[in-house]
Structures are given as structure tokens and as C-alpha cells.
């Protein structure tokens, strides 16, 4: 039989699966297919395509038979299968707050790390990149995070293998070892109904990543290549060489005037470059004999905008998905490997470049490798870098070579066996691993001013990680037709082991001589933690309308003493599919309406030391020995411990509504939630004399998060030539600390946090009871009649006529209150235009750059050198640093166009019968940002802008070939 498969608009559907009589094929780019070797007679043909209802039809076959099929889109994708923890459900039956983004909706362009694929796409999750360095990670927060001192990172599960959040030496971000091109879907689990099955690691949300799998049919190749150019958009406003000279000549002493150079150097221009990157991926997917497979390889090379910054990554993946024993045994094997080679630029150059004297040259003949440096001549004639001066930014970059190589391999084999005697019962075994080896070297020549005191560096480091996962569960699904019910029961066991081996080496100077006092006490260290879990879930569906779901997980963690080791994390949910009720069943407008209510308890243990419940002694490093008599002894120090440390617990209440209108052309969801974390793993002051420190991480404190999430997606226009899709999401989250100490005390200010650059130990934020986390905690600036701040004059808020710590006040926070995302795509014939916009509202930023270099003291530096300043000095007129003035906190709300893309689908470039399809695309990323913030970029998760590595504007050209 042969024919063509068309969609609802009459356009051909390539890639649809047609099967009949035990044979199957895939439609070609024209939607055409041929199946041969079928016996004559009546035969059942089925046609499947993702997002469409399955067509099953009995046709008579007699010789060459024509059969054309027209598929109808499945209503709102409600039959789409969504991955949840330990299983899948159809979207219509979901009981939890779950958002899914599939590859067709990913952010496009130059995406180096996977989390950036869904930035701005999902309500309730904020993804803030850590800057513009190639491969740098992001701060990911699901519903604001639930913790204070412990981790706020979500659990990330790839193909059923939970990753550890531990960093990998030599990689700026562990996720940068994962090739985004291998990813098919992201599923974000948000409420407890969805996450509680992950128990003690679920409080900060769970992100499930599914990678691309083998497909049935003949092998299909895909090759994509991208060329990207990166460019820094904006530079910081500092004094021009002329203005600088003018200032020094007017205000400087004779000695300072004599320091002026004769050059005109724009140091920011010197440290940044327009850089290039390329990302190439080749994949083949198909079926070999009866085994579906996918093999892919990727090569990425990205040069940073900061001179000397570079990332090179080679990735490979193999997936096979055979089915054995009459499809009773499904096997999924995923193997992925990555190799990265990085050179990390010395990011200290960013700060040096804004404050280095613009009248000095880059190069000059001297003993520091011929880079101009501020130096002093000793009485004996030796020239020594001024220890307090800014270092030459170019020397910081060029004279430091910081290279790393990281190998990582992860994967799993999952066996799903549906019992021959009882097909409703599945046994599922999942064995996974994640190993990596990171190593690197840092070299600075002996004559470089940056490490002059130790005569250069020649250091190396190495770390091996070996994580293992073993899981087994049984799943029983049964339709109980007699009582109009369906039950779906899962019970399982999990074992997770995380082992890291850290090697210790002495420090060497550039001549490879061991730096005295740096010899390690131990050659290596092997921290290890293990988690054991039992979990179960039952979903009961009555009449396709009412769904009751409950899950429970109990986790045992080696991080806690045996008596506190086990935690129990239950959840319950009720879902009402309102549209199945008679009064809506026939509605033309409302195609889906579902109410979800859930409650559950999750835990969190990440971010605390592995052995903090045990009384231990630690041996000091070689630089911290103590002399008794003539011998230096390594010191054994008793370590603070908390015998009773345990999980922190978050109870989440969630109410949500899913809706679909006009046969699913518009669909969306609304969720409101309330999260209450108790027994926070919180570092608090303890009564002194009761332990071997003045603070300890223990279970004290409560924090609350409440929020609203809303998402709507719609096909605004849908015709054969023109379509317009748009999606919008909105998040409101507000947190409040409700308790911080064992003993309630109204006079306790809270935990100072938010360390800044400038002074020693200055902080600008605080976590206080009754306030948002990371509220600013500063003095209230007093202004004169013209609106100019009065230097060092602050409001006496407590009215005691003294300005001291008691006058610090709390206001605003680094955490945004509202997060908005908007994506849209316009398609006309072969062209399509898309854009993604994101906005954060209500987040405030401490402008540390201004606070540091917005003062004249920085210019005529009393420590014997000149330094450039921000043009800010003309506004504030400050002579000395006023780090603790609220003057430097600014509204960081912004609207950013993340992405603007144009693509052209050339179709069959070698005629309608050829197999070769071509798509071309062009993207611009980080197109513009609208903000009142006066610094370079307000999107900084910590809220402290201190010489942030600028996110470049990126221009991408890409080619995608199918063959």
C-alpha cells in the first residue's frame, strides 16, 4: 500500500508513522509512504503523529492499494504523554502543576547550556545566567526556592538519572557538559503532587530532561551548523583620558600630576573583543533491523568576549530503544559523553579595566613582562608592584593561562518489562551512572605583577566524580470497567551514591618550585554520600472525571545520624476534569477545563556538609601549622557538629486550573500556591560555649513563599499559508522569613548576607524575620535641596542622635516580584519570524561598581597611584566610598528581548523527490534591554552588580539539513 498523510489543513505530514501487518514506515517530506510485502486481504492500518489523534482503519488490500490518510490534531495535545517521576501520564490526567517545553518551543540561537533553552518559557521558574562567559551556568529557581543556607537549586533528572548538584572542577557549570541539541523535552514539576515522589530532594522543584530517542523507519540524518558572533553591547561610563588629565591637573598634588601618562587608552576596548563561535551537530536516527537508535555528535567552539576566554566542547550520544519478547520488554539505553576544553579568562580584568588610569600605555619596557604596572622602587633599587594598586588589565588576561579539561560520561539502561502473565503489571529497572574527571592547570609567569609576591603560579588540580543510581519499581495499571474506574499504582526502591575524589597538590611558582607552606596534608579526599529511598504512588480515576492521587516517599540519607536519617514525604491531590461533566461536554468554546488541588510535603538536604552530625577532628593545612619548641605541628581541631541535624521540610499547597478553548487553539493554566518551609537548614549563631564554632548549620527557621502563575498559549491565526502563535506567562512570587532563631527575639536584626567588593567584610543585605529574603540593609541617604546626596550623612532612623548600626534599615530585595515571559512566532509560507521577550519587575540591584569607583578617592588614590572613576562622581561628588548608603540600590526591573529569529524553510532543495531538506535561520540574541538601571545589566541573581561579565549581543546564522 502507498499513499500520502495530510494534516487537518491538507498539507503533507512528513515523519508520520504508518504501520500495518507488523511492518512500519515513516512518511517522507511530502507526507508520502509505501509499505510493501503485505498479504492480500483485510488489514488494519494505523497512522500516528505526535500531537494528532491516532488513525486506525481496516482496508482491503489487493495488489497495489492506495490509502491516503488525513489526521486530526489531538484536542489541545491532551493525549500527549507527559513524563512524571517514575512513569508517564497523559496530559489530561495530570494531577500536578507541571509545565512542559518541547524542542519546537525552545529558545533558538547560540545556546551553550541546556537550561537556557527554556528561559522565559515556563511560569514559576526563573533562569538567570551567571554572565557572558562561554558555558557559564545559570541560577535556576523554581517558585523562588525554599531554603536559606542550604541549596535552592532544583533537582535535575536526565532520562531518569538524577544529577548531583555538585560542581565539577574545571567546568564553570556542570550542565555545560550536556549538549542542548540532544534534548527533546523539559518537564518542570512544581507542586508537591508532582514533586513529592522525589521526596527529600524535591523542595526546590524538579526538572526532568528527556533526550532525543531513536525513531522507527529508515535512518534519517540531520546536520546543523551555526556560526555566531558575540559582541559586548555597552561599556561603563568612565572618565575620558582628557577629562581624567583635567581632573588630576586641577586637583592633584605635584606627585600625582607627575604620575600622569601620555597615552589615551580605552581599557574596556582593550579587554573585550568581538568573538566567534560555532556549533555543529550531526545526528542519525532510525531503526536498524528492529532496533530504533539515535547517534549524535556535536562540536562547539565558543570564544569569549573577554580576551583569552574560550570553551571547546565535543559531545557524543548513543541511544537504542529495542523492544523484545513481543514488545513485553522495552529497553532504553542512553549513553552520553562530553569532553570540554576551556581556558578561563581572569575576570579580575573587568574591574581593572574600568578603573585603570586611561593615560597609561598597555605596554612599556619594564621587568613585569613589558606590561605597564604601578610599582615602587625599594631602597635597594628593586622594583616591586604597588600592592594596593590596580593591575594592568591586559596583563591580567595575557599573563594568566587557566586551562581545564573535563570528561564526563553519563547514561542509563532502563528495562521495562510488562509481565507475560499480567500485562498490566510492569517491572522497571533503571541503572544509571554519571562519572566525570576534571583537571586543569593555572600558569602565571614569575615576572607578572598579578602574582609577583609568590613568583608566579604553576598549579594543577584534579577531581573525579562517580555517581551511581539504581532504581526498581513495579507499576500496575488496570481499568476496572465494572465500577467505571482506573487505578495506577507504583511502588519502588532507589539507591543513589555520590562519590567525589579530590586530589590535592602543592602550589608551585612559575619555576615549578613548591611554594613553602602549600604542601597538602593529604594526597586526596573522598567525600561520599548515599541516599536510599522507597516510594509509592496510587492514582485512582473515576468516571474519567475525578482523579485522586497520592504518593509517599521515604528517604534515608547518610548525611544524618541514624536516628534522624529517614524522612517521610507524602502528597495528595484531587483533580476534577470539569469539561467531562455533561454541562460542558458539548461546549464548542471550552474544550478543556480542569481543577487541580494538591498538598504535599517535600524535603531538602543539599548544600550542607556530608558529615556534619559526627564529632570529628580536622588536620590543618601546611600553611596553618603551629610552632611549639622548634617544631611546627599540624593542628588537630575539633569541628562543630549537630547530632540532631535533619531534613528541612516544605509543605506546599497548590490550586490550579487548566483550560483549553476553541478546540485547544488557546490553552493555558493558572496556579496559586503557598509553600511553607520549616526546620530550615540555616546557619545561625549558637550560644557560645556550646560548640566548636559561633555558628552552626542546624534546623532552625521558617520561610514562606506564595505565588501565582499563569500561562496562556494560543494559535492566533492558523491558515495554510500564514500562522501566528503566541505564548505568555506570568509569575508572581513573594517570600517572607517567619522565623530565624530558636528563641524569638524582636531585637535580633537577622543574618547579614550579600558580601560586596570594597572594604573588608562589608555586606549590604540581610535575612530578617518578617522581610523578604535578601532584603537590602543600609543607611538612608540624606540629600540636599538640589537632590545631591550629602556625603556620609544618613538619616538617624532611631532618633538617638548617633548614626550607627541601629540606623540601618531594610528595604526592597534582590529577588524579583514578577517575572513575565512572552514568545511569539509568525509563519508565512516558508518564512517564520519569532521572538522571545522576558521581564523581571520589582528586583533591586546594589550598584557595587559605582560604589567602588564613583568616588574621587579612587582617582587620586592615597595609596600612591591614579585610578579611573565612573562619571558618577559628577553626580554624587563623593570623595570617599560610602558603601553602606542606600544611594547605590537601584530598581533593576527590566524588559529584555532575548531572541529575535528569522528562519526560512527551503524544503526540498534538489527537487520534490529528493530527500534533502534545508532550513536556514538567523537569530539575534540579547537584542535590547529596557531598564532604568544605570549599570550595564540589572539581571543579576545576587542583586549585587560587581563587574559582571557582560552578556554579549549575539548574532547567529544557522543551516539545518535533513537527509
Amino acid at each position: 500500500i502507498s499513499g500520502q498523510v495530510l494534516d487537518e489543513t491538507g498539507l503533507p505530514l512528513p515523519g508520520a508513522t504508518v504501520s500495518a501487518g507488523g511492518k512500519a514506515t515513516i512518511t517522507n517530506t511530502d507526507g508520502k509512504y509505501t509499505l510493501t510485502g503485505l498479504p492480500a486481504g483485510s488489514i488494519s492500518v494505523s497512522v500516528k503523529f505526535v500531537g494528532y489523534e491516532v488513525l486506525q482503519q481496516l482496508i482491503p488490500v489487493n495488489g497495489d492499494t492506495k490509502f491516503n490518510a488525513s489526521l486530526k490534531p489531538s484536542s489541545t495535545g491532551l493525549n500527549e504523554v507527559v513524563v512524571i517521576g517514575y512513569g508517564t501520564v497523559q496530559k489530561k490526567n495530570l494531577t500536578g502543576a507541571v509545565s512542559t517545553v518541547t524542542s519546537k518551543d525552545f529558545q533558538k540561537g547560540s545556546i551553550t547550556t541546556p537550561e537556557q533553552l527554556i528561559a522565559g518559557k515556563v511560569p514559576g521558574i526563573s533562569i538567570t545566567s551567571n554572565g557572558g562567559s562561554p558555558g557559564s551556568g545559570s541560577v535556576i529557581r523554581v517558585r523562588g526556592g525554599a531554603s536559606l543556607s542550604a541549596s535552592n537549586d532544583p533537582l535535575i533528572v536526565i532520562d531518569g538519572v538524577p544529577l548531583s548538584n555538585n560542581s565539577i572542577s574545571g567546568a564553570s557549570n556542570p550542565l555545560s557538559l550536556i549538549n542542548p541539541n540532544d534534548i527533546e523535552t523539559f518537564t518542570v514539576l512544581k507542586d508537591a503532587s508532582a514533586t513529592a515522589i522525589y521526596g527529600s530532594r524535591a523542595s526546590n522543584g524538579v526538572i526532568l530532561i528527556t533526550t532525543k530517542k531513536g525513531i522507527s523507519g529508515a535512518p534519517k540524518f540531520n546536520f546543523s551548523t551555526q556560526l555566531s558572533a558575540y559582541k559586548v553591547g555597552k561599556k561603563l561610563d568612565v572618565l575620558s583620558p582628557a577629562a581624567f588629565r583635567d581632573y588630576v591637573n586641577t586637583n592633584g598634588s605635584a606627585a600625582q600630576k607627575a604620575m600622569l601618562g601620555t597615552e589615551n587608552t580605552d581599557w574596556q576596548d582593550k579587554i573585550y573583543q568581538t568573538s566567534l563561535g560555532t556549533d555543529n551537530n550531526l545526528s542519525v536516527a532510525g531503526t536498524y533491523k528492529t532496533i530504533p537508535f539515535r547517534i549524535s555528535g556535536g562540536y562547539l567552539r565558543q570564544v569569549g568576549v573577554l580576551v583569552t576566554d574560550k570553551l571547546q566542547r565535543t559531545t557524543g550520544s548513543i541511544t537504542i530503544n529495542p523492544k523484545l519478547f513481543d514488545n513485553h520488554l522495552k529497553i532504553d539505553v542512553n549513553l552520553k559523553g562530553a569532553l570540554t576544553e576551556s581556558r578561563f579568562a581572569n575576570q579580575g580584568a573587568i574591574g581593572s579595566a574600568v578603573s585603570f588610569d586611561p593615560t597609561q600605555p598597555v605596554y612599556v619596557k619594564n621587568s613585569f613582562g613589558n606590561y605597564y604596572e604601578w610599582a615602587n622602587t625599594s631602597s635597594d633599587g628593586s622594583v616591586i608592584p604597588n600592592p594596593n594598586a590596580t593591575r594592568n588589565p591586559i596583563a591580567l588576561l595575557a599573563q594568566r593561562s587557566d586551562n581545564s579539561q573535563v570528561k564526563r560520561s553519563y547514561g542509563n539502561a532502563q528495562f521495562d518489562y510488562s509481565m507475560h502473565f499480567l500485562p498490566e503489571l510492569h517491572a522497571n529497572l533503571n541503572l544509571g551512572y554519571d562519572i566525570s574527571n576534571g583537571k586543569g592547570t593555572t600558569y602565571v609567569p614569575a615576572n607578572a605583577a598579578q602574582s609577583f609576591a609568590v613568583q608566579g603560579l604553576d598549579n594543577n588540580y584534579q577531581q573525579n566524580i562517580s555517581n551511581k543510581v539504581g532504581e526498581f519499581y513495579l507499576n500496575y495499571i488496570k481499568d476496572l470497567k465494572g465500577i467505571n474506574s482506573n487505578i495506577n499504582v507504583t511502588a519502588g526502591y532507589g539507591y543513589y551514591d555520590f562519590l567525589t575524589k579530590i586530589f590535592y597538590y602543592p602550589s608551585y611558582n612559575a619555576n615549578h618550585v613548591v611554594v613553602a607552606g602549600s604542601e597538602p596534608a593529604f594526597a586526596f579526599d573522598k567525600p561520599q554520600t548515599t541516599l536510599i529511598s522507597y516510594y509509592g504512588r496510587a492514582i485512582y480515576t473515576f468516571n474519567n472525571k475525578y482523579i485522586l492521587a497520592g504518593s509517599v516517599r521515604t528517604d534515608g540519607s547518610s548525611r544524618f545520624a541514624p536516628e534522624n536519617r529517614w524522612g517521610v514525604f507524602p502528597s495528595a491531590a484531587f483533580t476534577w476534569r470539569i469539561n467531562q461533566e455533561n454541562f460542558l461536554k458539548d461546549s464548542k468554546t471550552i474544550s478543556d477545563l480542569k481543577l487541580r488541588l494538591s498538598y504535599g510535603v517535600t524535603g531538602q538536604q543539599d548544600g550542607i556538609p556530608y558529615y556534619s552530625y559526627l564529632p570529628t577532628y580536622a588536620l590543618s593545612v601546611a600553611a596553618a601549622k603551629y610552632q611549639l619548641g622548634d617544631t611546627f605541628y599540624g593542628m588537630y581541631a575539633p569541628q562543630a557538629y549537630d547530632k540532631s541535624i535533619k531534613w528541612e521540610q516544605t509543605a506546599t499547597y497548590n490550586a490550579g486550573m487548566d483550560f483549553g478553548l476553541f478546540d485547544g487553539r488557546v490553552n493555558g493554566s493558572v496556579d496559586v500556591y503557598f509553600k511553607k518551609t520549616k526546620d530550615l537548614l540555616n546557619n545561625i549563631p549558637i550560644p557560645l560555649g556550646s560548640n566548636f564554632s559561633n555558628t552552626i548549620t542546624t534546623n532552625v527557621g521558617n520561610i514562606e513563599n506564595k505565588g501565582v502563575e499563569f500561562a496562556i498559549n494560543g494559535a492566533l491565526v492558523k491558515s495554510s499559508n500564514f500562522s501566528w502563535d503566541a505564548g505568555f506567562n506570568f509569575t508572581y512570587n513573594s517570600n517572607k522569613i517567619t522565623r530565624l532563631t530558636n528563641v524569638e527575639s524582636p531585637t535580633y536584626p537577622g543574618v547579614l548576607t550579600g558580601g560586596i567588593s570594597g572594604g573588608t567584610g562589608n555586606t549590604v543585605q540581610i535575612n530578617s524575620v518578617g522581610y523578604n529574603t535578601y532584603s537590602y540593609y543600609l543607611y538612608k541617604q540624606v540629600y540636599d535641596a538640589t537632590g545631591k546626596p550629602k556625603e556620609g550623612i544618613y538619616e538617624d532612623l532611631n532618633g538617638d542622635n548617633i548614626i550607627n548600626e541601629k540606623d540601618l534599615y531594610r528595604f526592597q530585595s534582590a529577588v524579583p516580584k514578577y517575572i513575565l515571559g512572552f514568545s511569539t512566532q509568525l509563519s508565512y509560507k516558508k518564512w517564520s519570524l519569532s521572538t522571545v521577550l522576558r521581564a523581571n519587575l520589582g528586583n533591586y540591584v546594589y550598584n557595587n561598581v559605582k560604589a567602588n569607583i564613583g568616588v574621587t578617592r579612587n582617582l587620586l588614590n592615597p595609596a600612591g597611584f591614579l585610578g579611573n572613576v565612573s562619571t558618577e562622581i559628577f553626580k554624587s561628588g563623593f570623595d570617599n566610598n560610602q558603601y553602606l548608603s542606600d544611594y547605590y540600590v537601584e530598581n533593576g526591573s527590566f524588559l529584555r528581548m532575548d531572541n529575535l529569529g528569522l528562519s526560512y524553510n527551503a524544503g526540498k532543495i534538489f527537487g520534490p523527490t529528493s530527500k534533502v531538506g534545508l532550513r536556514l535561520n538567523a537569530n539575534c540574541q540579547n537584542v535590547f534591554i529596557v531598564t532604568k538601571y544605570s549599570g550595564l545589566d540589572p539581571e543579576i541573581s545576587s542583586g549585587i552588580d560587581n563587574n559582571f561579565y557582560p552578556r554579549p549581543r549575539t548574532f547567529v546564522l544557522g543551516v539545518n539539513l535533513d537527509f
Partner: protein
Amino acid sequence: ITADLAYNTPAGYKQVLAKMYGGFALTGNGGPDATVGDVAGIDQGSSDFLRLFWNLQELTTDEAAIVWNDPGLQDFHVMNWTSTNIMIRGLYSRSMYHITACNEFIRESAEAKLSSRNITGSEADNIRHYQAEARFLRAYEYWVLLDLFGNPPFVTENDPIGKFIPSQIKRADLFTYIESELKAIEPLLVDAKQNEYGRADKAAANALLARLYLNAEVYTGQARYTEAITAAQKVISSGYTLNPKYANLFLGDNNVNNPETILALNYDGVNSQTYGGTTYLINAAISAALDPKTFGVPNGGWSGMRATKNLPLLFADYSGATDKRAMFAPGNIEMNDITVYTDGLAVTKFKNITSTGAIPASANGVYASTDFPLFRLAEMYLVYAEAVKRGGTGAEGQAITYLNLLRARAYGNASGNITSYTLNDVLDERGRELYWEGFRRSDLIRYGRFTGDNYLWPWKGGAKAGKGVEAFRVLYPLPSTDIIANPNLVQNAGY
């Protein structure tokens, strides 16, 4: 490793003993660049005992003012600190940490523990000495708390580790406790001058007793000057002699050929690195313009603190030409701006060069190897002289002899010798002899000149000419963090 492994051998005991001393000198086990040290809530590099103690004892007085804007630092000189001051919390935390660690060591070196670990004979005897030294170190830290905070929490080896709330001790009771401890351990300690370098002996215990008794009237309202004289005399007659050259007391090789120091905090530019200790006292006292190499810190010079004019003016001639103890860099003696380093004279007393002019090995040309004298003979002479003048039973002639020993060393001859002295002369002599060694605040309090307006110095109370401050500032507040964590504590009056 677990506690049992650490104490498994006598060598292990020695390494814990090293921590009992090293926890006193260094910031933590991780070295100077670790992110956290023994105590938290403060910049690691400034969390050692000496840097904090020095700041609280010296920056609050006429002897020093600092330029930097670190949180809370400027509050010391202008005397408006509060209970949330980070450095006040830092010192209090350091002392209490040290006490808690000593308690643990005292528990672990109990006789029953030794026999259960099969440690006997001379090895057990050594550990008994270690235990007495841990009790001495604990007594020293309690003296610090007594002097600066008055009424701290009180824990001994009989209290547990974990979730328990220590009780508070009143200042007078704490005085009694320290006195009884020092008397109890005196016979248990190694004889004077017989212990290893860097470890406490009988003389150290008596030196602390002398200091304690001299200030007893401040601590308890009861004068104990005769006991001060007795204790000081015990130390004086233990065989210590003045280092012939005053300047050598503060150099990089002051651990050798130094007959004067009774107990020192030991630093080493390679093996015991820190940004506190004498590294701080040397680097922060000078600027890069003062040729740091001549101070033995070629890559240092932090432009931090310098003296107000009151200190150099204690010397009739502060050039150092007559009284060699006057060690100041030339410059502007007036302090017009407290945040300008060149306003006020730099103090060049501590240096990281040896008596022969060499620079000791240092990992980075910043860390110093100069040891800091906690107790030295000169102080005992001064205790003797002051206690006699304050009515203790002793010989005034002997006191004059002692004072003249110091003055003859300072002048290099008898030209500065005295034949009589007043009580006030002793304070001035202490200023000249012991400046920048952590005594000044206690001395001014004992003489009633710390608060109030009967003695002023530039920027006292925040006014350029100086002005009086509230009397309650003779004690520091208990840190608010501990007031909240420990409901048994009552805050000192005024805070």
C-alpha cells in the same frame, strides 16, 4: 577523623595541643586564604585573636586610629560601637571558641581517658602538662572576657557539647574563678623557662595573676595590689632578663636569644600564615610609600593605622634619638582627617626583619615571622611599680630600680633615670614601654581616663579635638547574636 583517632597516640595529643595554641594565634585550620576560619560572621583574615584584641584595646585609645572603612571599624576610635559590631562579636566568639576547645582537650586528657588509651609513664606526664596549659589558655581567655566584656557565658569541661544553654557569670565571680584556676595550675605547669618555646609555664601563670590583681579593683571593687606585687616578683625572680635592645623584641627573630619574653604568640611566614597577628601589625602600620621591604614585607604596606599625637607626645623627643622606644615614621603629627593615612604618625615598632637585617622566609613577602609577646618581663616591672604606688606592700626603691632598668635600656645610658615617680608617671611609662602591645584600653580604664572628658585625644567621641563619652563604654556589649542565642545572658548596662 573521629576524636578517638585524633587522641589515639601521644603525638595526636600534641597536635591537638598545637591547636590549643594555634587557635589562639591563627584564624583557622585552612590557612589564610580559606573561606571560613574557626569563627564565622567575620572576614576570615581578620578573625584571629590578636588582630581583634588589638583593635579593641588600641583603636579605642589615643595610641591608634585606623583609616579603613571595614564594617564597625570606625566605631572604635569614635566610641559609638553597638552590640552588633562585627569585630566585637569576632573577639568574643574567638575567646569563647578557644575556651570551648580547651574544655574538650581537658576532658580528653583526663586520667581515665589516658589509661583507657594505654598512655602511661612520661608520655602521660607530658599530657598532664598539656592539660595544665590548656587550663592556662582557658584562664587567659576568661581574663580577656573579664576585662573587655565583664559578664560572659561560663562553660568548663563539665559542660556538654551540643544543644545546651550556658549560664552567665558575674564579673566578680569570674575574677575568683580565674584566680583559683591560676593558683591551682601553677604547681602543675612546667617550671619557669623550662618548657618548650611557645608553651606556657609557671611564670606565665604568675604573670597573668599579676595582671589580674593589678586590675582587681576595676574588676571587683576590691584592691589586690599586694598580691599583684607578689605575683610579679615571682616572675621577676624566675630568671628572665631584659632584652638588651628594645627594638629586637619586635623583630622577625624574636623567638631566639630573647631572655625577656615569657610567652609569645608564634607566627611564621611559611608555616603559620595569617593576615592577622603581627602580619597585620606590620603591614597595616605602614604604607607602600614607606618602603615595605625595609620592614621585611616587600609586597605589603596596607596604609591602615597610625598614632594620634598623644602617643608620640608621651616622649619628650619622639624622634627616637634619645628614648629609642619612640619608633615613628616622619610625617604629619596632626590628625585632621581620621581616614587619611598620612594624618598621624606611622608606628614602626614591629618589623619582619631579623636583628641582623635579613628577611625571614615568607610565602608571599607579606606574611610575617615576628612573634607577639603576650607577657614580657618589662610589664612585670611596671606592675610592681604601679602596685607599690597604689598601696601594695612592696619597696618603692625596688620599683624605681625596675623603672630605671627600662629607662636605661631605652636611653642606652643612665641619662633618663629617675629618682622618684608618681602614679601618673607609671601610666606614661607604660605608654612609652608597652604601646601597641594591647594594654592601652585597660590602662586608661584603671586610671579613670578611658571614658569621660578628663583625658582627651584626637577624634575621641567623634570630635576632632576629642570629647567625653559615656561611662558605660568601659565594658563592651555582649554581641547581640549571643544575647539572642542564649536567653541566660543579660546585656551589659548601657547597651
